């Protein structure tokens, strides 16, 4: 025991005891000299910095004024506004031409939510969106997105798209988002539709989420793993009021989500993202059209995205390939008739930017509803032997990243009768700079 302690003490003692007192003094002088050298260097750098800044003031071309101007012209008002949230506004308007009546639009074999239908013929304003977001304090970030739309009766409908808080500083790559949100499901669900490459959402979103997004109130936890390859897992629990959920079952905890995604780069010019996700939604008296559904809707999604650009420079040219595959399972009762229904759907799209301001895109989408039992023939669940299919071709002009003009032609065979649809859509954003989400 004593031998061990002594052995342990040896290295410590070696450090603490100088060999000679004289060497001690010399070491001190050396240290002082080093310190003085460092001080001289610091002063030299400061001098250089002063020189650099004074020469930077030379009015070479533009008069760089000492007063940083413009953002807040008011004097004392500036301090009250200084912590204002970032505000951005998205405006959209379109002209829609159909060869058939858009009010009759259906997706064969699928019960649709309220928002799944297309806009009417002719000029249409679409949704105007206002977003306010900011860091709240050291822990939280908040975002509010409201959409204003015409309610069809001369009034304005204001809807809450997203209103959530999100943590900034949890450890281990964790993040919690709470409130009203578009949960992570598949690739497009968390994205607002005005940011899409096409003027409308693909068939599977309209069929399974009843519109552009599945939206609900609840909490979502995600974890980015500490791996070199991007890997994120997460899930959420929600009230269960957004289609396909209904009725806020299970004491207001009617739907749950799970997701996992990975992604990375292949060299400098290519990148990819792949994910799987799952939605489990309880519906209590989910009323759609002439059918009422009580049961559980499950949606399984696999998504993938691949991007190529020359040397990884997205400014002048890129190609994006992206697609998702959905499996849906509705187990329950439609109008008190038990029915376990399995369906599937997918879409695949390619978008090619061939000029800094021009893109062209092509999308194919298909749904597959099973043959229904005799009791459901003639209802919305009856696909009448027809599998919905749409093909879309879009040309986009972006004067800048804040404005876009899109011309899209769709061959729409989602219902039993096919339709030719032409849409001209403008989308602009004002205010705070939007984010380049992958």
């Amino acid at each position, binding site marked *: 025991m004593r031998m061990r302690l002594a*052995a342990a003490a040896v*290295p410590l003692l070696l450090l603490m005891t100088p060999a000679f007192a004289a060497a001690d003094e010399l070491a001190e002088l050396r240290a002082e000299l080093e310190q003085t050298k460092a001080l001289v260097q610091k002063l030299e*750098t400061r001098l250089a910095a002063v*020189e*650099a800044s004074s020469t930077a003031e030379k009015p070479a071309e533009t008069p760089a*004024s000492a007063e940083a101007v*413009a953002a807040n012209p008011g004097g004392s008002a500036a301090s009250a506004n200084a912590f204002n949230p970032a505000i951005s506004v998205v405006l959209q308007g379109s002209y829609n031409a159909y060869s058939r009546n858009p009010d009759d639009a259906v997706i064969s074999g699928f019960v649709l939510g309220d928002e799944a239908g297309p806009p009417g013929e002719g000029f249409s304003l679409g949704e105007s969106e206002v977003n306010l977001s900011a860091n709240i304090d050291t822990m939280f970030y908040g975002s509010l997105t409201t959409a204003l739309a015409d309610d069809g009766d001369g009034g304005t409908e204001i809807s809450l798209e997203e209103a959530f808080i999100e943590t900034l*500083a949890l450890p281990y790559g964790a993040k919690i988002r709470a409130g009203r949100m578009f949960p992570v499901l598949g690739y497009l669900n968390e994205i607002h539709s005005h940011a899409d490459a096409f003027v409308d959402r693909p068939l599977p979103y309209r069929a399974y989420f009843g519109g552009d997004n599945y939206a609900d109130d609840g909490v979502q936890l995600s*974890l980015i793993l500490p791996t070199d390859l991007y890997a994120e897992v997460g899930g959420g629990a929600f009230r269960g009021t957004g289609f396909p959920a209904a009725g806020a079952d299970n004491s207001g905890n009617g739907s749950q989500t799970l997701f996992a995604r990975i992604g990375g780069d292949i060299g400098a010019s290519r990148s990819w993202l792949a994910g799987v996700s799952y939605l489990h939604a309880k519906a209590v008296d989910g009323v759609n059209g002439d059918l009422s559904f009580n049961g559980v809707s499950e949606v399984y999604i696999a998504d993938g995205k691949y991007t190529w650009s020359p040397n990884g420079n997205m400014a002048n040219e890129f190609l994006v390939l992206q697609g998702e595959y959905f499996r849906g399972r509705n187990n329950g009762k439609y109008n008190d008739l038990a029915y376990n229904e399995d369906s599937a759907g997918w879409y695949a799209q390619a978008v090619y930017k061939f000029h800094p301001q021009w893109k062209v895109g092509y999308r194919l989408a298909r749904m597959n509803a099973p043959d229904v039992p005799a009791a459901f023939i003639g209802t919305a669940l009856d696909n009448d032997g027809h599998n919905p299919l749409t093909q879309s071709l879009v040309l986009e002009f972006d004067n800048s990243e804040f404005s876009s003009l899109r011309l899209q032609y769709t061959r729409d065979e989602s219902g039993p009768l096919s339709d030719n649809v032409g849409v001209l859509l403008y989308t602009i954003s004002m205010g705070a700079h939007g*984010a380049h989400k992958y």
Partner: protein
Amino acid sequence: MNKWNIALIAAGLVAASPAHARVKVFACEPEWGALTTAIAGDQADVMVATTALQDAHQVQARPSLIAGVRKAQLVFCSGAELEAGWLPLLIRQAGNDGIQAGQPGNLMAASYVKKLEIPKVLDRSQGDIHAEGNPHVVADPRNLRVVARVLTDRLKLLEPANAGRYEASFVAFDQQLAARIDAWEKEAAPLRGVPIVIQHNVWAYMTNWLGLDVVAALEPKPGIPPTTSHLAGLLNKLANTPAKAIVVAAYEDPKAAQWLAGKTGLPVITLPFTVGGNKEAGDLFALYDTTIARLLQGIK
């Protein structure tokens, strides 16, 4: 001496030597990656988000960048809204508390430099302008001396065990840079007052340093690609205020510059702009060497 004693001695010796933890740095642009390597050497694990062949305005918050920011102890970027389209989203998505704005792990180089071209009117009708001024600060090597000092202090804060090494590296780097700046200024004397045409004004700090005179830009407004009508108008303008060369960065599409060169006979000088922009620009010193050499060669 049994194995326990040997183990204890070894443990004592190891405990006596300083820990060598490599600080993980996420640099947005190659110049900041190169500066970090110059100061920290192998004491830093650097990931660079973009290359010299990419337009830093147009980067997307892709998966590899999210993973990189998540692991980073220091996010080192230009700031002044150059990365406004992607860095805030990365920082929010990354789930990393040390790199939020205002923390020691968040370093925006342009904040420490006296900026040029602060707009008098902030309006998007004037193009994609940066409210705080021109963010492309690497174009003037004197700015690097200021940023290097701040970086060194920040590295010392994040990894105090290596403070001595960082300081020593900085001293050596700064001495060398100061001497080379003197040499470059002498070498670049013939460039004073030389009129040039540019595409997008990433060169403001360089033209200010070397006294070059920008007489026209291929872009009609910042961020708007060259249009045929604007280029046609440039021919008239250059007839009145002639230029000696057209300068483009390695990441810019040279088509418009080549068109103008065809019409005017002016040489097109392709400059690397940042580290890695051409074969010669392997590090920061070589970057300015090749930049000045190409400018001088081009105006002959």
